């Protein structure tokens, strides 16, 4: 689910060719796992079918593809909704949160507010787990502890990222 939304987010910066989208995706989000061309084009086709992008003018660009994709209002609304909504608090979210933060900075959206919303969602879940610890059996306590420590790791990442937003903005914006 992240790849279509990430490509949509990249398209919100500016209309792009599939080749450019793949290059930017690999640069910022690939982390050693480049997006196959086939997936880029099949994703763009689905986004076009669903009315989230349209094919704009055919213009020269790098690579064999000449189609330039343009995000629609429907697509932009979906990106906005996705960025604003906190991710369901569960362990190992760094990749998804990282993608959201970088895209938010690229699109000049309030990344700090998104991090605050995410922090609140995490703390809500941590309160639930803490309540389980206060009233549960030892096994429940230990399971809750496991969740709490992982959520805490996410939160530390959120704090550190919040403190580095200015530098990160510089790094991801032209």
């Amino acid at each position, binding site marked *: 689910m992240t790849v279509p939304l990430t490509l949509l987010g990249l398209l919100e910066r500016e209309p792009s060719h599939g080749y450019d989208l793949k290059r930017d995706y690999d640069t910022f989000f690939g982390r050693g796992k480049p997006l196959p061309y086939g997936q880029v084009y099949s994703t763009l086709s689905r986004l076009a079918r669903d009315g989230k992008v349209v094919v704009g003018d055919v213009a020269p660009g790098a690579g064999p593809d000449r189609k330039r994709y343009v995000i629609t209002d429907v697509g932009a609304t979906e990106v906005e909704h996705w960025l604003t909504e906190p991710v369901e608090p569960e362990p190992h979210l760094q990749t998804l949160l990282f993608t959201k933060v970088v895209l938010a900075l690229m699109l000049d959206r309030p990344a700090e507010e998104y991090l*605050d919303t995410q922090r609140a969602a*995490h*703390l809500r879940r941590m309160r639930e787990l*803490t309540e389980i*610890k206060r009233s549960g059996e030892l096994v429940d306590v230990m399971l809750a502890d496991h969740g*709490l420590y992982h959520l805490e790791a996410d939160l530390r990442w959120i704090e550190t990222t919040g403190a580095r937003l200015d530098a990160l903005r510089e790094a991801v914006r032209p």
Partner: protein
Amino acid sequence: MSPMIEARDVTYAFGETPALRGANLAVAAGEVVAVMGPSGSGKSTLLHCLAGILRPDSGEVRFDGTRIDTLGEADRSALRRDSFGFVFQFGQLVPELTAAENVALPLLLRGVRRTPALRAARGWFERLGLAGMEHRRSGELSGGQAQRVALARGLVAEPRVLFADEPTGALDSLTGEEVMTLLVDAAREKGTTVVLVTHEARIAAYADREVMVRDGRVNAPAGVAS
């Protein structure tokens, strides 16, 4: 209903360095609120202003609807003694006194006679897992035991507001959680309002809600008024 303790547009500076830049926070009676934020964000300064330890440069602090930032030092001192309890990061027990005498201190300062004050103090020891340690001095207590004594001292006089500044900061995680469980259980039982300053999410998770202090201002989570 007015909040139990409230800061309105509070500013405070240490010399030329601003610590609070218009902080707002309202805590309802019986509520346990965690004040979070990075080092130097102003969260401890906010606690000190709410507790009448510091007088804000501007803005208002209200306790049960009444302004306390306009009170003189003597009146604020009386307020702290009669209505507030405190727990700090490093217990800050008086080393010359026994554990029971340390717990009894707030009652003695209020004028309670020594015998009933010590009796009330000793009542806390079993509950906090400290039975038999009443006569120990702080040097004979572990960090966790000393902090539980400090917690008993903060609660013995049944304050209306307990201010806890990083109360588990010097403890290992398991001991810290034991102290927090005791703190929250005691506060809920008595309906004590708690303002808990912490930078640890797992400690903040014991509170009813959290607020973030950043650059001297309070940010409440989305949808929650501060």
